[in-house]
């Protein structure tokens, strides 16, 4: 191979040429390619039976069709995904799904009831973390072959626990209910692993995009599936570039090297608001920020103290300043904008009322307390604001920040006093959050219900437990919704939590880009309508 002199001199020449001519060194993305800048360091797998991370969940939502779905055209209406229709038995315990005809996987294989049954059984048998979303219906590796079966050309599921069918259908819209191509996955099975090793880095779906490559901490590349059931996506290729640094994301979107930037800070959003080539899209998210008090602590175990804490947060002050545009005040345990939401915000900063409550609780001069929180923005800032307002009532708070991998073990071991943390729904049904916030059937430390927030905070209330179970089982949708709102009201008045904010995600988008849809959970972020 002959290397020309031009290329031997490329380095100094590139500098000289660049300095002399000053031309742009990077081309804008082609019309058929959509490029997004995002921190995707959280992706650790792309197997839908295991994905439980935000970025990974988002990829899955675009590669796989789920059994049930909230489609981008109407994010509030649950419709069939792979399922064309479904019949619910009278007792509400059996649901038979008819599968859409003429639907194919990326491999060309037809989507059948066998694939649906295999996909759900696979989730239960692999038993990865998000499997609880469906194993709560009573499915175990031992019984799942009898409870999830092919019935003629339908996939039939039977639950053994008392659950409202509406909840079951909602749960089957989560990423965990993604339907995989059984033949393709089985072809890559090693030592009976149900394709687990292979599917972490590959895809076998029927969604609008196919996974071309995932290079950890570098990029995810998706290619359009032209035979998708809703028609070919608007762009041929979607590339998600791992750009961890928000400042770099801002530079790239302004230069036109990416079409969308996902992780800009409020001041960066402010900074680009006057750029005519860009627009800002604000999407309400399901993520809630809350303050929780460990009820096993001698001071925080007093409900009056926790009530006082709720009056010692400058909700609006924070929302109007450093959280501007990215968080709004929300004080209930299920996010606003979703079915079952409760939008009352009874608490404002009221130091006098808090002082009176503290005096009533026996702490007229306040006390010392520790707040643990994450070390990433905006948690330290929120903690500092809370620290300042607590001080107005004589409460002397110290703040400790840590990485999630350090903070969560402590939280799960009930070793905190106050913790400022975040929670997002696992699936689009209020049970997802209220089961975690409110339902603690066994408050003993040795019960180790570490996934349950109420247990982590050593708090249980019999009446609330009963209401959560009743709402979970209720067949009448209106009654169900009323029950969930009642539970949220109860939690506002009596619980270890002060729920503070709901996230709004602000994305910077090139003005020629249309059709990016970002719903409340990662299961509802869709690329298929994007055009540019």
């Amino acid at each position, binding site marked *: 191979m002959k290397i020309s002199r031009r290329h031997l001199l490329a380095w100094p020449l590139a500098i000289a040429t660049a300095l002399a001519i000053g*031309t742009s*060194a990077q081309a804008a993305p082609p019309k058929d390619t959509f490029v997004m800048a995002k921190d995707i360091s959280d992706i650790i797998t792309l197997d839908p039976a295991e994905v439980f991370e935000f970025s990974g969940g988002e990829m899955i939502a675009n590669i796989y069709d789920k059994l049930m779905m909230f489609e981008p055209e109407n994010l509030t209406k649950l419709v069939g995904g792979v399922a064309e229709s479904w019949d619910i038995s009278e007792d509400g315990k059996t649901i038979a799904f008819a599968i859409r005809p003429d639907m194919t996987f990326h491999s060309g294989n037809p989507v059948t009831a066998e694939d649906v049954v295999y996909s759900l059984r696979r989730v239960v048998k692999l038993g990865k973390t998000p499997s609880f979303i469906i194993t709560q219906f009573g499915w175990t590796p031992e019984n799942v072959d009898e409870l999830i079966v092919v019935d003629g050309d339908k996939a039939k599921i039977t639950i053994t626990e008392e659950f409202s069918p509406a909840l079951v259908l909602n749960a089957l819209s989560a990423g965990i209910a993604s339907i995989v191509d059984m033949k393709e996955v089985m072809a890559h099975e090693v030592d009976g692993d149900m394709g687990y090793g292979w599917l972490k880095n590959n895809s076998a779906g029927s969604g609008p995009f196919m996974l*071309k490559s995932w290079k950890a901490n570098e990029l995810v590349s998706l290619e359009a599936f032209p035979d998708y059931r809703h028609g070919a996506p608007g762009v041929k290729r979607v590339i998600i570039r791992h750009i961890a640094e928000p400042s770099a994301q801002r530079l790239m979107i302004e230069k036109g090297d990416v079409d969308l930037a996902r992780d800009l800070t409020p001041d960066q959003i402010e900074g680009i608001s006057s750029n005519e080539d860009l627009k800002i899209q604000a999407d309400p998210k399901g993520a809630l920020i809350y303050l929780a008090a460990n009820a096993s602590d001698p001071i925080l175990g007093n409900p009056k103290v926790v009530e006082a804490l709720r009056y010692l947060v400058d909700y609006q002050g924070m929302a109007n300043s450093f959280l501007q545009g990215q968080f709004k005040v929300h004080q209930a345990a299920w996010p606003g904008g979703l079915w079952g939401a409760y939008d009352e915000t009874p608490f404002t900063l009221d130091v006098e009322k808090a002082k009176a409550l503290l005096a009533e609780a026996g702490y007229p001069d306040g006390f010392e307390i520790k707040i643990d929180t994450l070390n990433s923005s905006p948690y330290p800032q929120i903690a500092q604001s809370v620290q300042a307002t607590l001080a107005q009532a004589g409460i002397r708070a110290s703040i400790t920040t840590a990485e999630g991998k*350090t903070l969560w073990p402590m939280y799960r071991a009930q070793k905190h006093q106050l913790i400022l943390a975040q929670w997002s729904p696992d699936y689009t049904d209020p049970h997802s959050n209220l089961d975690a916030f409110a339902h603690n059937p066994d408050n003993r430390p040795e019960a180790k219900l570490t996934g349950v927030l109420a247990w982590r905070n050593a708090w249980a209330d019999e009446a609330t437990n009963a209401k959560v179970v009743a709402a979970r089982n209720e067949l009448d949708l209106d009654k169900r919704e009323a029950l969930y709102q009642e539970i949220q009201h109860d939690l506002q008045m009596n619980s270890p939590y002060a729920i503070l904010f709901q996230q709004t995600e602000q994305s910077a988008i090139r003005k020629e880009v249309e059709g990016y849809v970002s719903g409340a959970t990662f299961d509802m972020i869709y690329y298929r309508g994007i055009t540019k």
Partner: protein
Amino acid sequence: MANTTSRAATGPFLSLPGPVKSILNMLLTLVLTFVGLTAVTFTIGRVMPADPVLAIVGDRASQEAYDKVYTEMGLDRPIYAQYGRYLVELAQGDLGTSVMTSRPVIEDIKRFFPATLELATIATLMGVLIGVPMGVWAAVNQGRLIDHVVRVLGLIGYSVPVFWLGMVALLIFYGNLGWVAGPGRLDVYFDGVVEPVTGFILIDAAMAGEWDIFDNAVSHLILPASILGAFALAYIARMTRSFMLDQLNQEYILTARVKGVSEPGVVWRHAFRNVLVQLITIIGLTYASLLEGSVLTETVFSWPGIGQYITTSLFNADMSAVLGGTVVVGTCFVGINMLSDLLYKLVDPRART
């Protein structure tokens, strides 16, 4: 570490013949270094509060799911047993599987390490080719304007945070002027076009005759390499100046001048040759530190290198990846130091005995 290696050469095996003794000493140093390195990293990984199980199961996992993975990872066994198992696997060339990337650590390293090596090599070359003459020039002109300029530049290059310098450089040369390409190693449209053979994009692109990709890679590389290069340059220039001043004040220099040796001859043949050993150490250490210490530059420029890999893995409690990365960086340290030792013997006759 260079000195450690040298000291080991005088350690055990005194009764053996020279070359055999050297090789055995080298191997002993290598083994001891690795055992020490892995033992310390392993222990830190196990005693730090970050939980490796949560890295896999997530913070919402039930206790059953947590316990299952805890046992699968062998964390229920005593730490010495875990370490012993790691050493056995390491001896078989198995660095484990990364939680973060779901791939064998060895494959990750094959992908991330060349990116860093490419960056660090070019930065070190810039540092040597510009920094050494600058240092010599400043020393020869001690107290004059050029000396002050080199000293101030050295101070700035060494004390300005790389992170800040990177952001400002990106803003000016990429954001405002558009002279160079932005973050990343390549434009995404070129991703996967060239089959990685060496892992060095410049070499792979040149071998494939893909000159558009080569040019694009150069455009991406200029800025981060220059930032790192500025750091290397500042340090090397400063140290060269200091070593040269030391030598230029020696009596043998005066003798050479009295004997009528030309000024360039005094500087380059006499003084410079005597600072070479020290310079080799400095250059070796700079190169090694750039290999593992360029994490901030890698973060700013979204450069998928080993520094970022180790750091992200550490934050994610992904200990197999951290250990694997540490072993590779440790190997580089030892390798560079051994190379320095060999070079000493080439440039300094006293070191050959």
